[in-house]
């Protein structure tokens, strides 16, 4: 129940970072973040405070984990559909690179 929005750090001045959220720039305070932040990093913003630095590699990792959850689909008519969708995903994945 906490609206959290990810954005990319453009610049840092002391405890304040200028962060880009889908093209909108906003100042975000760094008082409660638990690791060093540099321009280019992703931050999770909640009420104007960064609460987490999002490691870029974790985004790919999360998506890989979700695909793994799909991994073991077996049996039944639904299987064809899931396989079909996985095929689509593979195609989309290529375009994504």
């Amino acid at each position, binding site marked *: *129940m*906490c*609206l*959290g929005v*990810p*954005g*990319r750090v453009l610049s840092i001045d002391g405890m304040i970072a200028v962060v*880009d*959220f*889908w*093209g909108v720039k906003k100042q975000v*305070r760094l*008082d*409660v*973040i*638990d690791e060093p932040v540099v321009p280019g990093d*992703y931050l*999770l913003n*909640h*009420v*104007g*405070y960064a*609460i*987490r630095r*999002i*490691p*870029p590699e*974790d*985004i*790919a*990792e*999360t*998506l890989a*984990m*979700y*695909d793994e*959850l*799909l991994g073991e*689909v077996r049996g*039944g008519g*639904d*299987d064809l*559909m*899931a396989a079909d*969708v*996985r095929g*689509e*995903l593979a195609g*989309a994945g290529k375009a*994504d690179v």
Partner: protein
Amino acid sequence: MSDPATSEMRFRDPARAKALGARLAELVAAAGRPISVMHVCGSHEQAIARYGLRAAFPRGLDVTMGPGCPVCVTDLPEIDEAVALARAGVRVATYGDMLKVPGTAMSLADAQAEGARIDVVYSVAQAVELARATRDPIVFFASGFETTAVATAAVLVSDPPPNFTVLSAHKYIPPVMEIVAEMPGAKVEGFLAAGHAATITGSAIFDAFAAQHRRPVVVAGFEPLDVLAGLVALVELVVAGEARAVNCYPRCVTAEGNKVAQALLWRVFQPIGGRWRGIAHVPSGNLRLRDEFAHVDARRRFDIDVASLWQMAPPALVEHCVCGDIMAGIAAPRDCSLFGRACTPDTPVGACMVSSEGTCRIWHQYGGVPDLVQLGARPDAARAP
């Protein structure tokens, strides 16, 4: 992946969502029985509602909305305190969410209509700026779970101006999960835990909970894929009978959480028991300022006269409210004697009617939960060729 939009949008990929939905349906079908899980996060409900995910859940999977909205569970006397301060001429700053939440006699919006000065802020830092720009006392009426309380704490340790005080209605989520898990007759077999609260607390705190209450917990995020993947993982654990905690939101949640934020949180706040609107008394569920911060605690700085409000108020109906049971999945809105009569969206009694995504609100507005899947028109008929 050069900008955040692109990376986040990957969590809104309909093809992956369809695949996860199919997997979910397969799991529930294979279980051969209805499965009931609960999320304890208003943002999960928002995501489910906004993306129409509920219509995509398989029949046989019941995803209940738990007490996950800090605004909805803010108790009447807490709203009353803010209203009383505002009516006594004190300037109150608060988050937009709190404005319309009714207290015993009125909401802050009602007090504003009477002439009270209420400032809606997006961040507690803005409330501090307001205080710096004036000599008038500014009370920040602080709501939200631990995620939001951390921001309040950060402000309080960095020397706010002397005319700035905080009226804390902050809540702490983990204890209420214990309450809900142990409600007699609760059908909930697993929990989807709130991703951004867990960003602060870490996912490891749910290990003991899962073991003790013999129910799995999955920490999940808020994009459509996050919610669906979280549910797939949760249903897998339920079916396998594995009562453990799994973190499905690793890009924002670690096992140990944000240590800096935790240190700040517990330096400024202490957990105390309190009533959550329409649910129960929750031991350690409220966050109050420690004695060290008495000088910025509005409760200790002002004589708050809520008694005068109670005289204008209708008799308390709260004891008839069954929101707790509705959230526990034991009761439906039609089982409540207040529903649609004393308790309506304009005059809500319990948490489920306060929130726009609350079960009672949705039932009231739409006459039950409509079956959108069965609607006549094909979805693609609306698409431009």
